[in-house]
C-alpha cells in the first residue's frame, strides 16, 4: 500500500515568489494534516482537514498561506508571497480517524527561500 506522497521533494525559490506543495494521503484516510518543521525543531501543525473541510487552521498564517483539499482526497498548500522565514520542511500526514495513536507522514518538501 502506498504511503503519503508529497511533491516536490525540494524547492528553491526567491523571496516574494509563490510556491505550492502537493500531498496525496493514504487511501481511505479522511483526516489530513499539514505541518511545518523548522530546522532543529519538531513538526508544528498548520492545518487539519476532515474530508474537504478545514477544521483547525488556527496556526496557518492566513495572510500568505492557503490550503485546499478538493474532493476530500489530495491537498495543496500554497505560500504567496514567500518570505525568507518560510524556509522549512513542509510535512503532510494522514490518519484514518482524527484521533488515535498515530498519523502517517510523507517525506516532506524542503523549501528554501533565497
Amino acid at each position, binding site marked *: 500500500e502506498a504511503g503519503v506522497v508529497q511533491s516536490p*521533494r525540494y524547492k528553491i525559490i526567491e523571496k516574494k515568489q509563490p510556491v505550492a506543495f502537493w500531498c496525496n494521503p493514504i487511501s481511505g484516510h479522511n483526516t489530513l494534516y499539514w505541518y511545518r518543521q523548522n530546522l532543529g525543531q*519538531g513538526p508544528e501543525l498548520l492545518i487539519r482537514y476532515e474530508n474537504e473541510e478545514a477544521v483547525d487552521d488556527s496556526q496557518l498564517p492566513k495572510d500568505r498561506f492557503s490550503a485546499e483539499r478538493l474532493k476530500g482526497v489530495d491537498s495543496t498548500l500554497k505560500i504567496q508571497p514567500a518570505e525568507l522565514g518560510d524556509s522549512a520542511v513542509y510535512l503532510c500526514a494522514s490518519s484514518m480517524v482524527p484521533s488515535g495513536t498515530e498519523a*502517517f*507522514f510523507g517525506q516532506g518538501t524542503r523549501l528554501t527561500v533565497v
Partner: protein
Amino acid sequence: DQQVKQNSPSLSVQEGRISILNCDYTNSMFDYFLWYKKYPAEGPTFLISISSIKDKNEDGRFTVFLNKSAKHLSLHIVPSQPGDSAVYFCAASPGVKTSYDKVIFGPGTSLSVIP
C-alpha cells in the same frame, strides 16, 4: 514556551550498548505520549507510545518509561544498532481519544549509533 522538551540535541552510543533518550513536558493535561523516529529525507514514523495509566511500555528493543509526577519520559533502546541512527521526536497529547492535531512535538534528539 516549549511544552515538550528534549534537552539533548544529540547522542552518540556504541553499538550493542543502551541508548537512553529523555523527554520532559510541562503541561499536566498531557495524558498520552508518543515517540517518532525520523531518517534523513524521510517523514517521521511512529515508534512506540504510552498512556499515563502505565509507567512502562515495551516493544522489542524499545521501551518507554513514564514518570508522571516528574513529567518525564524516556526511551530506551537495547541493544542499540547502527540502523537506529536517526532523529527521535517525543510527542505528547491530551489523550489517545483526543484529536491528533493536539499532539505537540519536541525538538528531537539525533542519535548516532557507532559500529
